[in-house]
């Protein structure tokens, strides 16, 4: 199927009007009456009839040449369309095959299924083709796309662990294909079944509180493990999960980890004390403060931690609050000396769009790859231009401009958000990702249980079979992935060159060589004699 990258360039074919008009407007052959045609009848070939045919041929060649040029400008691609139904064996990049799954996979390939990765573009998975980056893909949306790409009555075999984390969103209704799910083992050696979510010193200063997360095919949960006398206890076994918490003490710092087959890094115990947060805001930012304050309180509530929050409006005489975290909303940037003083006291600062920065309208979105805060793709309507400094870009917008930057100053952190915490500026403050981000930032409490890679819950068999769409449902049909197209440029260039050569040849043949004017033929001249005797 021929497709064009720039179909508008086909309008250039309108240029073929020119040769057609020239052809049509050419005056008809002049009629000259002569006394005798005897000498013309002997002229070999080159009759006008031949000339007319040659003219028409020349016109056709020229028009074809122009069409070829227009098509060339339109950048044609030949998209290979498989005519019959297709059979795809789709393998999730994170799927680990056991013997049964491997056998099924081999059987499917023997039946003529094309091996492909269940990943965007559905790249070839034969010969151990490289697995696409990003182990965990959204299976439902990929299936929807695969269904749109295949011909009707195709068959899809999905080789993936039927994990709930893969099945986000709505279950697709397939119009073109029958999909069968081959469940692969959900266990993943990269992620243990149980892990230490957090470890903290109890509020009274004695004892430790460990939060142990565990996941299984039926559920994911967090259980609290209280160790009354950590100094005397090198290891504690959690009754609920059967995991053993290992403790060690180095330099008055207690840290712990779960002893599993794959040992985790030591997690230091945090001192249980309230986190002090303060918001300093400009006069026009009361609404932003409400959203931010709500998010901080929600984070504290969800994490079961205490956060003291102090809100101040910035005035010229404001003394900086004593806090672990200072949120500066709509105020001028910190001066360098003040920032240095704050850094010596380990005060982290989060700033949003500064007061004087000009706001820009932007129809874009958050780009936050591999970030657990789950903000990737959130819509962004307004932002400010980033300052030119060497900060680490954490998030950016859809145009690649920095959106959230980070820099360290001493032991303190400096975060700069280049938009506002306001729903008119972005979707972020209204999403659950906002308190989640506050929680991970302020409390250092990553919601590990929500990490899709850890979640090992399985879907029911009835859940994972994609629904078959009703026949009358208008199916979305997409073209094949890009690796099934052929670039026609080289062909068109050669065709164009051939046509040009043919055109030149015909044109030079039909137009006579420029004859040097022969006013009278020498033979005839000699005949003009004086009166013959």
């Amino acid at each position, binding site marked *: 199927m021929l497709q064009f990258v720039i179909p508008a360039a086909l309008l250039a074919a309108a240029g073929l009007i020119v040769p057609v008009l020239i052809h049509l407007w050419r005056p008809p*052959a*002049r*009629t*000259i*009456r*002569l*006394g*005798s*045609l*005897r*000498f*013309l*009848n*002997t*002229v*070999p*070939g*080159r*009759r*006008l*009839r031949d*000339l*007319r045919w040659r003219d028409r041929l020349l016109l056709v060649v020229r028009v074809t040449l122009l069409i070829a040029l227009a098509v060339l400008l339109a950048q044609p691609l030949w998209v290979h369309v498989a005519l019959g139904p297709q059979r795809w064996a789709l393998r999730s990049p994170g799927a680990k095959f056991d013997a049964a799954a491997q056998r099924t996979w081999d059987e499917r390939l023997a039946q003529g299924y094309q091996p492909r990765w269940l990943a965007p573009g559905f790249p070839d998975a034969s010969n151990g083709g490289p697995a696409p980056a990003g182990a965990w893909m959204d299976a439902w949306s990929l299936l929807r796309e695969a269904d749109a790409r295949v011909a009707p009555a195709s068959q899809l075999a999905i080789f993936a662990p039927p994990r709930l984390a893969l099945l986000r969103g709505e279950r697709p209704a397939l119009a073109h294909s029958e999909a069968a799910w081959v469940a692969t083992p959900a266990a993943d050696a990269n992620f243990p079944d149980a892990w230490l979510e957090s470890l903290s010193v109890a509020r009274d200063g004695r004892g430790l509180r460990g939060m142990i997360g565990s996941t299984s095919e039926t559920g994911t949960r967090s259980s609290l493990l209280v160790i009354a006398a950590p100094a005397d206890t090198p290891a504690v076994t959690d009754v609920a999960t059967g995991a053993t918490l290992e403790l060690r003490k180095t330099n008055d710092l207690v840290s712990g980890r779960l002893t599993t087959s794959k040992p985790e890094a030591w997690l230091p115990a945090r001192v249980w004390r309230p986190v002090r947060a303060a918001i300093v805001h400009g006069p026009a930012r009361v609404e932003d403060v409400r959203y931010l304050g709500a998010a901080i309180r929600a984070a504290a509530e969800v994490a079961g931690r205490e956060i003291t929050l102090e809100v101040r409006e910035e005035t010229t005489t404001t003394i900086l609050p004593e806090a672990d975290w200072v949120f500066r909303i709509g105020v001028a940037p910190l001066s360098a000396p003040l920032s240095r003083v704050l850094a010596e006291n380990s005060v982290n600062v989060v700033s949003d769009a500064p007061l004087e920065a000009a706001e820009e309208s932007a129809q874009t979105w958050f780009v936050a790859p591999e970030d657990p805060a789950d903000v990737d793709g959130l819509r962004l309507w307004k932002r400010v231009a980033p300052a030119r400094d060497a900060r680490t870009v954490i998030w950016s917008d859809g145009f690649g401009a920095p959106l959230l930057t980070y820099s360290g100053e001493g032991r303190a952190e400096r975060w700069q958000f280049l938009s506002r915490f306001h729903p008119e500026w972005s979707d972020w403050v209204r999403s659950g990702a906002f308190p989640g981000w506050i929680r991970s930032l302020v409390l250092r409490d990553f919601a590990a249980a929500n990490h899709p890679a850890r979640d090992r819950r399985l879907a029911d068999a009835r859940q994972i079979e994609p629904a078959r769409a009703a026949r009358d449902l208008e199916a979305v049909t997409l073209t094949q992935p890009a690796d099934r197209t052929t670039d026609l440029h080289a062909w068109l260039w050669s065709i164009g060159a051939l046509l040009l050569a043919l055109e030149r040849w015909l044109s030079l043949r039909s137009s*006579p060589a420029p*004859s040097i004017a*022969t*006013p*009278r*033929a020498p*033979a*005839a001249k000699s*005949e*003009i*004699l004086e*009166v*013959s*005797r």
Partner: protein
Amino acid sequence: MAAKIPDRQLIDPRVIAATRDLALVARKLVAGVLPGMHASRQPGLAREFSQYRAYQPGDDPRHLDWKLYARSDRYFLRESEIETTVTTRLVLDATGSMQQADTVGPGAGLRKFDLARVVAAAFAWIAQAQGDPIGLHAVTDGGVVSIPPGQHRQPFERMVSALESLEPVGTWPTDTRSITSVFAAGARAIGGADATREITIVLTDGHEHTDEIRAALLPLRARRHEVLLLHFIGRDELEFPFHGPIRFEEWESGDVVETDADAARAAFLAGQAQQVREWRRAFEGERFHYLMLRTDEPLDRALRGYLLQRRRQ
């Protein structure tokens, strides 16, 4: 009015194209070449004295000048120059192909027939001035329109009116006998015995389907006529100044050839030159004279050719 126009200029084809008075153009054309015209004289008995000549044995005694013998006691013959009369016949090709006119050059737009008509009228004027009988045979539309010589005292006016009423149409008759019989009848009307004193002037463009013109003219050679063939050839035919695709149509037959003029030029010119050679070979002889006339050249060449021939009579 006519006196203002220089004579030389008047015989230019352009002037002919601009002038519709055939008699005037013919007279002016003759006036331009007349200085070279001499009456043919022949010793003989006539009223006008020329010279005395001593008697020689064999002379007719009747020619002796007895009065002079009485005075001088010698025999002298009295001689005078008698005027000879030469009958001139004009054979004018008035077939359709004579409508051919040049597309370029000084004679552009002027038909061959217009030129031939002027030349014919000029001959008539000369003949009338010399008192020679002159006749016209116009071959047109498959037949012959004849004005036999010697029937009019003022043949010029008669000839001019006949020429002006003629239009070139039709083809040359394929039956050559119809023409030769007309010629023969004219010759008998003159008196037959003095057939040598006759010039036939043929004005034609030489366009024939097979060889009907040559076939009609060749019998003249058998009779002891002087024949002057004036072959009118257009500049278009000699130079073929056409380019590109052209639809050529034949005047008489209406046949059509569509061809690329540039490609056909060489063959056409070669064929034309070959034809002129053939005509020259056919009509060049003891009493036959061939003269090719270009339509873009002054016409006095035709008259000078005639006068040269007339002088030999």
